[in-house]
């Protein structure tokens, strides 16, 4: 049995750990609220953009001179994977879920004889993939130390992807990120950025069928599409970044909640041991005194 002093020390250390984890939980909860509002605020634009893209793209997608951002390069040889993860740990399996998915995807593609390139967004994902896929990583982006993510950050990533596409560095681009389902559930998913799955033309509720899809375009469809597609790419990246941020704080909050609870259990157990040891000591001392007195 450990000594009383050692037990006291352990109780004190577990208590301070508990304080840290419960503080981290609070911080994550307040950041989660902010991230969640941001996700919701970004939704209207994405929805309207999708509607506009749907009405534009149907006419152009099939044509041979369709823009690369819409139709891809027509080949399927070089795959660019963009895993999006958090910059920090202590969030349970949040980051490793994306890492695992990326790794599985990379293995599968390479088994099929494809070339894989990785652009890692977020420090944790990069660190994780660097262990066995270091040679495939062609770049990384991290927002460590940043308070919040703006649309400009997403645009920067999108520009980088577009430049690489124009330079013929890849044929297919897939985004891997955690979708924010709820505070306690984040599901890793993959999304094709290039060439994207086209949104089906949504039926308009407020316009009669005869008036639908009779848009005039100014200046013309190609010019608008040429502007719309990069914007759409940036929006998709932005959405992934925001979902990742919200999911990260959600995961961190539940991980820290668990840790706090576990620390509480541990404190209870240690306190019980401590009290037992203390009583055993008192009893032993009493016996010593009594038997000493009897011997006289």
């Amino acid at each position, binding site marked *: 049995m450990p000594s009383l002093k050692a037990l006291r020390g352990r109780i004190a250390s577990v208590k301070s750990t508990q304080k840290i984890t419960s503080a981290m939980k609070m911080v994550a909860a307040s950041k989660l609220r902010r991230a969640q509002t941001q996700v919701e605020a970004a939704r209207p634009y994405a929805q309207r953009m999708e509607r506009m893209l749907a009405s534009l793209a149907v006419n152009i997608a099939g044509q041979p001179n369709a823009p690369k951002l819409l139709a891809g390069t027509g080949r399927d040889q070089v795959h660019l994977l963009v895993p999006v993860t958090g910059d920090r740990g202590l969030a349970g399996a949040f980051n490793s879920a994306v890492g695992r998915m990326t790794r599985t995807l990379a293995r599968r593609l390479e088994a099929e004889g494809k070339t894989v390139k990785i652009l890692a967004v977020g420090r944790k994902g990069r660190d994780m993939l660097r262990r066995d896929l270091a040679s495939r990583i062609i770049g990384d982006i991290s927002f460590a130390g940043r308070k919040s993510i703006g649309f400009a950050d997403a645009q920067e990533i999108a520009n980088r992807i577009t430049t690489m596409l124009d330079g013929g560095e890849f044929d297919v681009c897939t985004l891997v990120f955690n979708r924010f389902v709820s505070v306690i559930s984040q599901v890793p998913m993959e999304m094709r950025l290039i060439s994207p799955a086209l949104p089906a033309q949504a039926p308009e509720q407020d316009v009669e069928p005869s008036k639908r899809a009779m848009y005039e375009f*100014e200046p013309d469809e190609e010019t608008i599409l040429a502007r719309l597609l990069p*914007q759409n790419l940036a929006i998709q990246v932005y959405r992934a970044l925001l979902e990742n941020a919200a999911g990260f704080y959600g995961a961190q909050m539940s991980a820290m909640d668990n840790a706090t609870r576990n620390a509480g259990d541990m404190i209870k157990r240690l306190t019980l041991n401590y009290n037992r040891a203390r009583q055993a000591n008192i009893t032993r001392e009493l016996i010593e005194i009594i038997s000493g007195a009897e011997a006289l």
Partner: protein
Amino acid sequence: MPLDLEIVSPERLLLSRPVDMVVIPAEEGDLGALPNHAPMIVLLRGGLVRLFEGGQIIDRLFVSGGFAEITPTRVTVLADEAMAPTAVSREEGERRLKAAQEEYDRLDKADVPALDAAMARMQSARAMIEAAGSAA
């Protein structure tokens, strides 16, 4: 019958309200939309979106570029950036104008799409400076 106007930027929904008429800065000139306008999708340049009610301008919003979708019953402005004219910063506009100008000078003069993009950015920056001046 009023027209439902919505102005959204990637970061949030800025405005959603019925108006009598709206004038949007389309790329090929300002475009006024009244109810029952023919369906249109237009590209925007930098400038002010003006909201009209009873023949009076009731509100103005600066957009730095983007798209607008017009249908007989609603107008949706998808702005790259949108803000109240009072929030527009002249310094920011001048900084952007300088950056766009430098890029324009650096670009290969044969690369027409890139030149056009730089020109559009210069125009947007000028509109920003102008909007900052008009609000002051």
